[in-house]
């Protein structure tokens, strides 16, 4: 039985809090751009952008990055290092404050790949990382600036994030291997 650790209400609340923390940390929304990491990070990025729009009446540009699948349920080895295969970023990132958004922070390799891709497009003023779930087990020196929920997990477990846009519901679940 999957165990639901974040329900729909808690997910809404986490995104709301992350939005406020982004405003707090950046002293407003000037020069902010949000980049979602496919697949679910994109929807979370859009939700954060729509919250900023509601609060500040400012449209923050949202783009997305497609990182080769690097899933925690696939055996990882040297051949499986993630890289960004496509981007959909219709605005310059040079001089901007970039917020990367992903659903789960695990080894940190996806984020490293995403950062490299952003750097290749231009020199941002800063890059911050917002994640819905931090499950630990980092293999690189990376940490999130905005965390929805810390879920200490075993490496044998899977963390499954569902978002209503494509999964018809909002939830974070732990699946036993």
């Amino acid at each position, binding site marked *: 039985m999957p165990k639901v650790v974040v329900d729909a*209400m*808690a997910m*809404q*609340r*986490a995104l*709301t*809090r992350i*939005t*406020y*923390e982004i*405003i*707090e940390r950046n*002293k*407003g929304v000037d020069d902010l751009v949000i980049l979602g990491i496919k697949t679910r990070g994109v929807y979370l990025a859009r939700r954060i952008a729509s*919250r900023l729009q*509601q*609060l*500040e009446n400012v449209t923050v540009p949202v783009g997305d990055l497609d990182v080769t699948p690097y899933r925690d349920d696939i055996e990882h080895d040297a051949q499986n290092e993630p890289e960004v295969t496509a981007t959909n970023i219709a605005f310059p990132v040079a001089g901007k404050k970039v917020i990367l958004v992903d659903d789960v922070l695990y080894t940190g390799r996806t984020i490293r790949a995403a950062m490299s891709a952003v750097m290749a497009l231009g020199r941002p003023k800063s890059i911050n990382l917002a994640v819905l779930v931090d499950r630990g087990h980092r293999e690189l020196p990376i940490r999130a600036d905005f*965390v929805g929920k810390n879920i200490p997990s075993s490496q044998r477990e899977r963390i499954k994030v569902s978002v209503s846009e494509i999964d018809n519901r909002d939830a974070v679940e732990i699946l036993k291997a």
Partner: protein
Amino acid sequence: MAKRYLILEDGSAYAGEGFGAGATTSGEVIFNLNLLGYQETITDQIYHNQIIIFAQPAIGNVGINHDSYESILPTAKGMVVRDLTNISTNRLSRLSLDEFLQQHNIPGISGIDTRHLIRKLRQAGPMKGSIVDVADAHAFDQLNATVLTNRQVDQVATPKPYPNPDTGKNVVVIDFGLKHGILRQLSERRCNVTVLPWTASAQDVLNLDPDGVLLSTGPGSPLDLGTGVLDMIREVQAEIPLFAIGLGHELFALANGAELTALPVEYHGSSHPIRRIITNDVIYATQGQGYAVLAKSIDRDRLITTYVDLIDGTVQGLRHRDFPAFSVQFFADGAPGPHESRDLFDEFMEAMTSREG
């Protein structure tokens, strides 16, 4: 039951049947539009020195139970109802409303045309009133000579600190006349609470090394509390996650440069849709306010408006731009309901956790 009168300072008198205590009392006459929750209402200290007219016509039909006290010693000055239903078959009921009011020396009067009275008060604004045995010239003289205190918070808030221990987060509650619903919600989340008197300084608060600070609800006007409390809020909000409710919200707004306006008529009810701006959806909550934050006085470089009342347009929630400090005008503890804003306490918990980083 004895015939008694509700008299108002405009010279009108309403005859009804007395219930509860036989005391003669004076207070500000206000009305409450909630359909449920008369026990929470009569025991809430925001009604200190007020005579409450209940719009719900049948009052008393669930008695008085253990779970719905909002204070130990209620200090409302009276209940005005259409029909008193003094028989309760509710399984939670411990005693009747009539017995309860006798214990606390609060008079009630029933058989009053509450619809007419509420319409009148909506037009005329705030009015003093008394519940008396005889509506003669002497009673009116007494009423007109009555000066209502503006020291309500001093009357009902704790003069000394006290603990409400548990095993979780350390929370300091600043008491302006808090309703128990606030402590109940913190207890449900295992908070280790210390309640401080409202005169506490920022240093008093910081000395307790709290994870979070909550500014409670309370009666009266925040403008009567002086500027010391505003200094305290400014200092504390920069250091520690802060959550403010009701009177606390009004003080939080004042401390951050906003202005208040007295509403033409106090609003007590739960039927106004409230827009949560960030997600653009609607919630309902119990509201009780005589003052509101003036929307155009809000400094947008310091505060973000987070909730707004869709009926009267009043500001219902604020958040500080630079600190994890936020406030709501409505009663997020949901006592009485609706309960849908209780997750603001979860938001407060997460603000405390997130800060540990």
